[in-house]
């Protein structure tokens, strides 16, 4: 009675190996065809009126290793130099609910690749696609947008904010939405 049950359980388990735990990650999730779209956008970079966000899910948001790689890249590439661990400084805060250029993965991807006015450099070419998606996943985790069990825990360094995995999920307010909302 127990054996077939056990076999079935094992089989089911094998088929559903946990994606959250996979590492080192295989080739990145299929790149959304951003290059073509963004090529068009390159000409009229401006805040306000972002395109309707391409709601493409970033699979890395569910992978703990990719998120931790993103965190490590964020630190190593000195993103904190401007964004200061996400709390904001010279650059905008990334831990809060305000998104100037949109909170969707594709928006953040474009921000990293193309840069934004007022100081955000374009990292296109300097980063591989995979690295960018890892960073995108991590940046979203900074305001609690990803699964709690995949987001990073504390780092082995001075603590400036609670670990990503323990942050309240902020409901993103895109600047565009805020502008569109009737003022009261």
């Amino acid at each position, binding site marked *: 009675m127990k054996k077939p049950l056990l076999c079935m359980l094992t089989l089911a388990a094998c088929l559903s*190996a946990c994606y959250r735990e996979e590492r080192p990650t295989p080739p990145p999730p299929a790149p959304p065809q951003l290059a073509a779209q963004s090529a068009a956008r390159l000409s009229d970079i401006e805040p306000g009126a972002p395109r309707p966000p391409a709601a493409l899910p970033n699979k890395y948001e569910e992978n703990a290793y990719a998120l931790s790689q993103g965190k490590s890249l964020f630190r190593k590439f000195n993103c904190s130099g401007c964004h200061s661990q996400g709390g904001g400084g010279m650059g905008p805060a990334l831990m809060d609910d305000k998104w100037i250029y949109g909170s969707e993965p594709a928006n953040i991807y474009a921000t990293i690749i193309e840069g934004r006015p007022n100081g955000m450099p374009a990292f296109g070419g300097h980063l591989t696609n995979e690295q960018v998606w890892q960073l995108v996943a991590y940046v979203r985790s900074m305001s609690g947008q990803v699964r709690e069990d995949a987001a990073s825990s504390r780092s082995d360094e001075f603590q400036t904010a609670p670990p990503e995995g323990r942050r309240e999920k902020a409901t993103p307010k895109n600047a565009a939405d805020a502008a569109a909302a009737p003022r009261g």
Partner: protein
Amino acid sequence: MTPAAAIPQSNPVLDRSWSDPPGIIGWLSATNHKTVAMRFMLTTFGFFVAGGLLALIIRLQLARPDSKLVGPDFYNQLFTMHGTTMMFLFAVPVMQAVAIYLVPLMIGARGIAFPRMNAFAYWIFLMGGLMLYTAFILDIGPDAGWFSYPPLAGPEYSPGKRVDFWAQLITFTELSGLLEAVILITTIFKLRAPGMTLNRVPLYVWTMLVTSFMVIFAMPSVMLASTALITDRLVGTHFYNPAEGGDVVLWQHLFWFFGHPEVYMIFIPPLCFMSSIIATFSRRPIYGYPVMVLAIIATAFLAFSLWVHHMFATNVPELGKSFFTAASAMIAIPTAAQMFCWIATLATGKLNFRTPMLFALSFFVILLIGGLSGIMLASVSLDLQVHDSFFVVAHLHYVLLGGAVFPLFGAFYYWFPKFTGRLMNETLGRWNFWLMFAGFNIAFFPMHIAGLQGMPRRVYTYPAEMGWGMLNLISSIGAAILAIGILLFIVNVLRSRRSGTPAGADPWAAGTLEWAAASPPAPGNFSIPPVVASRYPLWSEGGVAGSVKGLVDHRREVLVTSVLDAIPNHRATLPESSIWPFISALAVTVLFVASIFTPWAVVWGAVLVTPPLVAWFWPKKAATQRNLQREVKP
């Protein structure tokens, strides 16, 4: 010659009151120490086989240089799981599992103290093991080594839940191990047959007493360490974060303060498997009973004073290191004394080389090599060279297989007739022994050389030009032979269980009390509990001086005696079988597993765990009524 009390008699009333209830619910409610112990042994053996299979994949991968069979990710999980399984799910628990079967029989008791807690400890252990293997199958297998050094095992470098499952496994197994230690200590101190004063206690029971005390003092250390690790990972504490005042070496101290005594928890019980087997097959008592007991106690004490020899390569102070070298060398002395006593016993005995004896005697080769290489590792300077190299892999397998697994297999051959009523096949047994012995040495001896040639541990591959290929190939071949030996053991068990020669109560004409019970023992062990007057009651004239009368048969009544001299003190009634230990274990499992994902699980988990625990404790009206009828106040 056999005293009256030693003749097993059947007593249907007694059997019924000590039997486990029927049906599936009854199966889950079982609390008889033999039932629980049998499940415990089978479970630990299952984990042993699983850990062994992992080891075979490891050996397959390392058989050739630059092998691409498994990648680093899976390999790291493999060796972590292998180490964790063997240390936490096999080596320590199997010793306790055998003990909860044998100790009550050896001390002439009808049951074990706290039988429900015993069942609970088993279920907790089983669920912990299943949790770990479920995680492994789901690719959440821990991959930071069985020693989980932070920061590698910490939140930053081990993202995801892999190490959390490891840390929770520690909680499961330590909880189970600690409870078993309390049960064994109480059983040994309070349930001995009248007349079994402390200096008549069988050596094996002594070792379990000492081991249980070691468990109590050592295991809290790793529990504390792993709790700190898991809170570091889950709620952001800073125990191991040097930037916030923590220290990664703190983990190493706590871990090895447990980890080194653990080796002795694994190694001390088999010492007295040896003593039991050698006495029986030399047809004489072990020479130097007081020396043996004192040696075990000395070993246990010293075991707590040498944990730093695992950390010589860190920057602990030099003078401190010399102390630990001296302590590590000193622990060889009691072991040497024990070995000399056994040799003396052999030299003055009348020998009979049956399979259990072969396994026991292999100790003199394998453990001797392991012990001597241990002395090399204890030296600060030598250790700097061989530490974390394959030399250590060789050493620890010589100690743990030679010191624990070979005697354990001998013990299985020796007590199998007691467990099942049938003898194991002798021819298969000899094949089994020689294959294991040869396979073991072929597998592990070359690792000494590989280590000296500079091969580090825990590597998933090595470049061909290092020239380690041939040594590793030999090792892998040896591992295969060893595996065939163990396969033969399984075949032998399966065959003998059905069609082995019927054994009778005492097939080896041995001297200790467990052989006075039937094979397999009746649910209540002894229909007429004995009174003891000798260390080897079944050998000495008048060793079983008489019997205990007046214990009630229709309840689970045991005679509680005094600690030192085993003078009868009172009659206690052990509780009925109950499903609640199982349900409590389930609730605790939910708490532990859920707390990997959210710290709040500790709070609502506690709410979940409390009702079954209360139900477990809550007395039944009928049973209370029955007890009241025969109650005698102190």
